[in-house]
């Protein structure tokens, strides 16, 4: 129980320190940031020791998330409703030329081609990593959605669509060689 309270205290103190740092711009700020992150790392360590590493680390991270949201809510500013001005303090998404073939190519790049490249990288990892079979498969399996999602994000964002196509083809080719020909 003492350990849990210490862990909770470290979470709150760490977030409090970051909150204080956020609100000021004097010489103390870097130390508050450093101290905040140090306390959050300490909280994770404490929960890992108290509950066990496997469950303690995710529990600590969840607590940081929920306590952080609590701090954000407590910092709520209510302002009068107003209409948008022409010049807002925001960046707009880039305006792209809307040609149908670019749309089709972008969908193909983000979906099947990114997926294919990610799977080929996953297979290459599963075959070439010098680990036990199940470990290599697990790493390859984890890599697939991460890479697919990354590829999807990038190909949908890159304004130079042919560059994205070239990189995906290159990654797929290299992975294919590593997976099946080496």
């Amino acid at each position, binding site marked *: 129980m003492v350990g849990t309270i210490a862990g909770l205290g470290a979470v709150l103190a760490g977030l409090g320190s970051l909150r204080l740092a*956020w609100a000021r*711009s004097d010489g103390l700020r870097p130390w508050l940031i450093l101290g905040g992150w140090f306390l959050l790392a300490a909280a994770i360590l404490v929960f890992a020791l108290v509950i066990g590493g496997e469950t303690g680390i995710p529990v600590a991270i969840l607590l940081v998330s929920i306590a952080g949201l609590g*701090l954000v809510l407590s910092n709520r500013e*209510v302002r009068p409703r107003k209409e948008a001005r022409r010049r807002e303090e925001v960046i707009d*998404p880039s305006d792209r030329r809307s040609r149908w073939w670019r749309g089709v190519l972008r969908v193909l790049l983000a979906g099947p081609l990114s997926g294919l490249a990610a*799977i080929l990288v996953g297979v290459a990892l599963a075959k070439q990593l010098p680990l036990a079979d199940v470990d290599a498969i*697990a790493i390859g399996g984890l890599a697939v959605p991460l890479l697919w999602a990354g590829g999807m994000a990038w190909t949908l964002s890159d304004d130079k669509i042919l560059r994205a196509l070239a990189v995906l083809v290159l990654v797929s080719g290299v992975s294919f060689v590593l997976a099946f020909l080496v």
Partner: protein
Amino acid sequence: MARAIWPKVPSRFVSAMLAGHSALGLAFAALIYIVCLSGTVLVVAHEIDRWENPDAPIIHSVDTDTLVRALDVGMDKAEQAGTHGYVNVTTPADGHPNLSVRIADFQTGLDETFVLNGEGDLMGPRRDGFGHFMEHLHFYLHLPHTIGLFVVGLIGVALLSSVWSGVFSHPRIFRDAFRFRRGGTKRLEEADLHNRLSVWGLPFHIVVPLTGAILGLSTFVLGILAMAAFDGDLERAAEVVGGPGVPHDEAVMAVPDVAPMIESLKADHPDGRLARLAIREFGTAGQTIQIDLAKASDLTITDRYIFDGNGTYLGSRGFSDGSLGNQVIGALGPLHFGWFSKGWVAGVVKGIYLVLGFALTVITSSGVAIWIARRRDKGKPVPGWEKAWIALVWGQPVGYGAVALVALAGLPVPHLGLYLVLCAAAFLPGLFVSALTLSRALRIVSAAVILGVVIAHIARYGVLPADAMALVINLSLLATSLLLLASVQPILQTFRPATKPGIGAEQPAE
């Protein structure tokens, strides 16, 4: 205010990332919303199961003799149903304080679960209408299983991709970390909500879609990886990933005595609690006995210990003490649903998963709201899309509530049909009324349907049934219903004390 400590990100890069983020979010918004909301409900799947069976005998522990008897009862029921495919006894160590037995035949689709008492006697069928509907909505979108699982996996990839592009299109991630503005312009208000919920829940928002994508794509991706790694030997691949098995063999063979298997495992694993006892293809030479032990210190929650028809121990899946790869595979489900740890810590984890899961649905919804506000600000409003989005968002609780109501009343109404009809019906009023009126009307209907669910549950089982979890769920539903009503401004104002002109005149947006 604080100076930025993050390197300056070129606005052109941010614009490009935002374009990708926006395109992907809008393309998948409806599916992401449905999967996130149903997944949030399923965080409390065990509690929903208890709520649907509040009169099931409360049992805290089960001895070996009772387990053996429960398995025998299950095999008898399976034989009566004409199958020897699968019988699985679930104990109080598996999430709810009941004893139950499930019989299934994966060829014919037979799948029934029965409640047992503390002696292992059959009490009657276990009701799972609403829970089953929600599971199939989240896992398969009610599509054929293989296709549905793949589609849900793809939605996981799309959501994860949105998380990546969202992070890269957020140049003020630290500078705005604690800023939360309500009011002002609609777009900034929604952006603040979207960004704060996204940033503070980031670890959750990465882990949940990642594990969901892997679980959804597992058949496809792990199949390909295993085939590549084992040169097409799928049996070997299945054994490495899923634990040892016995080849299919329909020759008749006596069912072994499972009691010694249970006792030997208990002796070898004094920290484990028996969560499930299953037998596959019983009475044949291809039968296997699977015993799942739960260990609270493991993220994987249970590990499976497998025996053949002679009672010979074949091995485990390695989720508890196998190699890292086995443990990672075993942790995917618990991490995805927030089903890990024990006691009050497990309750806290579920509570946080509920809040962050709901936050993910709000993030999805606010993302669309930002796009709608941006279009309006640019002089290109999209009132039709705005109404359609409102109908989709608020049609869900109406659909869920109606399915729960029908399941509770035991009415012979197809759940999927009812859900689809109500979801479609939510769009219709949009043809005649404004977006605000549509939103208010659907929130009131949602609140009424949820209130109806509580009343129906109390009418059937009473205020305080055997399982107190039913009361907790009913109170939570009641609170949800009241919150939905309170979110409708005219209703809220009716119950608010009058304010002087000029004071409190600023109303938050609905």
